[in-house]
């Protein structure tokens, strides 16, 4: 039995080391597949999630930079007259994804961080171009990162419809942001296609764009 146990523990240690726990997400999102192989940046990024009902969630990925998140909420508090207290703002810094309109933000941030996952959030309003609140979120987040190179991640669900996606893009475009990274599940290039040929001749090198 000894070799058997040896192997078992080898596998065990492999899985322990290879596992990276999923960061808590406000909603379950199944992303589409693509042949892209670029790594998704995990820090210094703005993540906008779009679920199948068209709800939009905003997350700032600013690990080791809680000041940025703080600046954003302080700014919004001032410009939108949200009436947030210090405790609300501290809660925002620890919160994962925000998916509520500005009027409901105070209520949402009154919920303790650990309980926020259970609250059903209606999503940030984006459908009405006159009141595209995501625009303000993105604007303040960009200025809070103050010149750092940030990535704009969009994570959409397979079944969300195109107009919602377009509205999200619109919010970024109004901030003069035109380069996005769509979060997808990787898949192999289909055999016989141009990309497949390029990859096999270059030994898996990324084709030049």
């Amino acid at each position, binding site marked *: 039995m000894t070799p058997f146990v040896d192997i078992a523990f080898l596998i*065990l240690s492999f899985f322990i080391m290879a596992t990276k726990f999923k960061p808590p997400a406000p909603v379950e999102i199944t992303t589409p597949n693509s042949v892209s192989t670029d790594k998704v940046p995990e820090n210094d990024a703005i993540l906008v999630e779009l679920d199948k009902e068209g709800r939009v969630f905003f997350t700032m990925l600013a690990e080791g930079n809680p000041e940025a998140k703080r600046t954003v909420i302080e700014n919004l508090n001032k410009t939108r007259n949200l009436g947030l207290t210090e405790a609300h703002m501290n809660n925002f810094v620890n919160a994962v994804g925000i998916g509520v309109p500005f009027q409901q933000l105070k209520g949402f941030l009154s919920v303790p961080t650990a309980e926020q996952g259970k609250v059903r959030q209606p999503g940030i309003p984006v459908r009405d171009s006159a009141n595209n609140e995501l625009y303000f979120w993105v604007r303040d987040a960009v200025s809070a990162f103050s010149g750092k190179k940030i990535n704009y991640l969009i994570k959409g669900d397979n079944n969300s419809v*195109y107009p919602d996606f377009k509205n999200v893009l619109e919010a970024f475009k109004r901030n003069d942001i035109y*380069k996005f990274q769509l*979060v997808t599940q990787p898949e192999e290039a289909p055999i016989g296609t141009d990309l497949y040929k390029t990859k096999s001749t270059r030994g898996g090198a990324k084709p030049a764009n």
Partner: protein
Amino acid sequence: MASIDTGGGDGGHKKGPGVKKAKKLSTRVDMTPMVDLGFLLITFFIFTATMSSPAAMQLFMPKDTDKKEELNKAKESGALTVMLGKGNQVYYYEGQLAPDGSNFKTSSYDPETGIRKVIMDKKRSTPIEDLVIVIKPNEEATYKNTVDLLDEMTINEVKRFALVDITPQENELVKVTQQAGGVK
């Protein structure tokens, strides 16, 4: 010469008569609980492991402009317009849309016979600098369809493509075709 009996020259293994043999304790430990726990952990980690980490797909959008001279021009011969409708339906036409809609065709996402083949054929038959693919999802197309089409651009190495809103005329044709085909 007097000598102390060391029990012979073999290191004192032999004890004299009457010396009690020390009871040998077994060094073997029962490993069953440990193995149980090990397997429990293995199953846990196998189930929770997300083996494939997500990949980022680059998307560059052009700046919106109203000025005619800033608009990118496309040669009619090299243009392929792909429209996405509901129920995973794909429609396309080459060049300009004929007023009677005669060059409006239906395709699918089938990897062999679907839109990929259309794009490949178009790429082969067009000078590479003229090729422009215009992707027009309508309001019922899903995000997945849109990403799939953008992915086709990478797969077929199409360098020039655009994500554009569908025109009312095209959308009308898509709707009519959907109704005729009974797409729910």
